[in-house]
């Protein structure tokens, strides 16, 4: 299925392979591009047809011009948001992974810790915002913690469940070698869990930027969340959409990076 067509076009020569690669890339980029263009066009058309006011649903053309004119301001906000996103997600990665391993370590811990983790996901941020503020002030720390809180959970569950995926025969072999818990983890269960862990990371990273945006609701002087709040107050719906667009693009880039990393690390799975 994987674009066999495109690969067949090019003969097995250096130049041919190069042309084939370019063709393949274009062929790959084409369908999402077409879909996207079609959707944007439809959006523009609907807005004009229904004569929707820009403060309700701005047309893509308007969003684009606003984006361009706002580029200088946006830079600062994007940097501020990413400054919260990256450490927050890093923290989520480390704690999520550690908790996943911990939960897996014994059914006892699983039963004791899981309900607490589920609870951590159900507490509305607004409820703990005062505690965070009183505990950590208005600096970066509480926002980083919110991002971590919003993103660590899928990593925990996917790690804990993924660790159960190891093959029985392989597990028994390592046990027969006298492998202790940690060796079993490192040599077998972790590699076997990697695909699942990456699934969790992909879900988590999708929440990371928007998590930072929400965290800025707690109080921040720059960031896409601040930009959105200001735009909402000023009925600049076009700016709200610009912010949403930028948030999406950042997230898609991060998501793509994780996917690439996954392909590189879990390469043994792709083999024929």
């Amino acid at each position, binding site marked *: 299925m994987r674009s066999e067509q495109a690969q067949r076009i090019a003969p097995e020569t250096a130049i041919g392979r190069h042309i084939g690669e370019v063709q393949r890339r274009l062929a790959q980029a084409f369908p999402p591009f077409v879909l996207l263009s079609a959707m944007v066009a439809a959006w523009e058309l609907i807005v004009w047809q229904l004569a929707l*006011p*820009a*403060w309700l649903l701005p047309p893509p053309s308007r969003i684009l011009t606003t984006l361009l004119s706002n580029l200088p301001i946006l830079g600062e906000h994007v940097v501020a948001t990413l400054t919260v996103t990256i450490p927050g997600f890093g923290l989520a990665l480390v704690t999520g992974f550690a908790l996943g391993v911990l939960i897996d370590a014994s059914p006892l811990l699983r039963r004791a810790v899981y309900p607490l983790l589920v609870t951590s996901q159900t507490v509305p941020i607004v409820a703990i915002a005062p505690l965070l*503020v*009183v505990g950590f002030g208005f600096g970066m720390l509480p926002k980083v913690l919110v991002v971590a809180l919003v993103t660590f959970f899928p990593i925990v569950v996917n790690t804990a469940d993924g660790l159960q995926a190891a093959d029985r025969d392989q597990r028994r072999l390592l046990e027969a070698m006298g492998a202790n818990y940690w060796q079993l983890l490192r040599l077998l269960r972790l590699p076997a869990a990697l695909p699942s862990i990456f699934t969790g990371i992909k879900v988590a990273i999708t929440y990371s930027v928007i998590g930072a945006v929400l965290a*800025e609701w707690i*109080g921040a002087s720059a960031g896409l969340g601040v930009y959105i709040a200001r735009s*909402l107050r000023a*009925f600049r719906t076009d700016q709200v959409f610009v912010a949403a667009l930028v948030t999406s693009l950042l997230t898609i880039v991060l998501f793509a990076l994780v996917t690439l990393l996954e392909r590189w690390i879990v390469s043994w799975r792709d083999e024929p």
Partner: protein
Amino acid sequence: STAPASPTKELTPVRVGLDWTPNTNHTGLYVARDKGYYQEQGLDVEILGAQEGGTVEQLVATGKLDFGISFQEAVTHARVEGVPVVSIAAIIQHNTSGFASRADEGITRPRDFAGKKYGAFGSPIEQATIKGLMECDGAGDRFNEVEFVDIGSTDFFVATERGDVDFVWIFKGWTGIEAEVRGTPLTILMMNDLKCIPDYYTPVLITSERMIAEKPDVVRRFLAATSAGYRFAIENPDAAAEVLLKAVPELDATLVKRSQQYLAGQYQAEAPRWGEQKLDVWRDYAQWMADRGLIARMIEPEKAFTNQFLP
């Protein structure tokens, strides 16, 4: 109050969107609903709470809501962006907001803001207001000595707990009363006492231009009943508080009762009737905003509000 509609007639369904969760600013609506004033006017009113910023005005403009609670600054912004909403009544006659600090902070006049930390909720109005207040108080350019700390939607008590923040812009009728209830001594520099920044209405009742053009009768009947509700609240603050608490039992009874007592004198104040709005107020504040670049262009203030539906 006014002539009741014939009982055989079907009630007209009406939706009102609140700007916030229900509080004592909204008491008149709940009283009118509870006491049957709306029904007498042939209206079946549904009150919807907890809209996030900016939503109510848009929903009123699109007709998804018939009426909404907003405030002058938002209506001004909205009209600049072409959102066709109109203020039809001032719920409280004067600005009851002010800059609050803990009493031991020693902030007794605007020039004391210098060197203090202000807890900002993130509106550009804040800078202009504080700057203006300090200039009026002869603090010159010491505005740069005020440190702005963004606190988002964090409340006064939380924000000032650790000393991250020294003063916050609050509503006296709610947060100010809560401080009294808690026994936290506050100093509040009331906007209206400082006589520096033009007065403005907050909150106001809004509807859409289309509603005014197409169903003026509904607007009139709605305001007749609502007005009666607020008059009741002015005359019977305790009973009005009970009505609100019955509708919204999650609220704190002491806070609601004390707040209602305070607002009883504020809803109408010295105005000839509840809800009255003045062109000066709309024009002067919009002009003030325009002069400071807070809005891209000046609005036509006479189109932003109307008194024509008040009973």
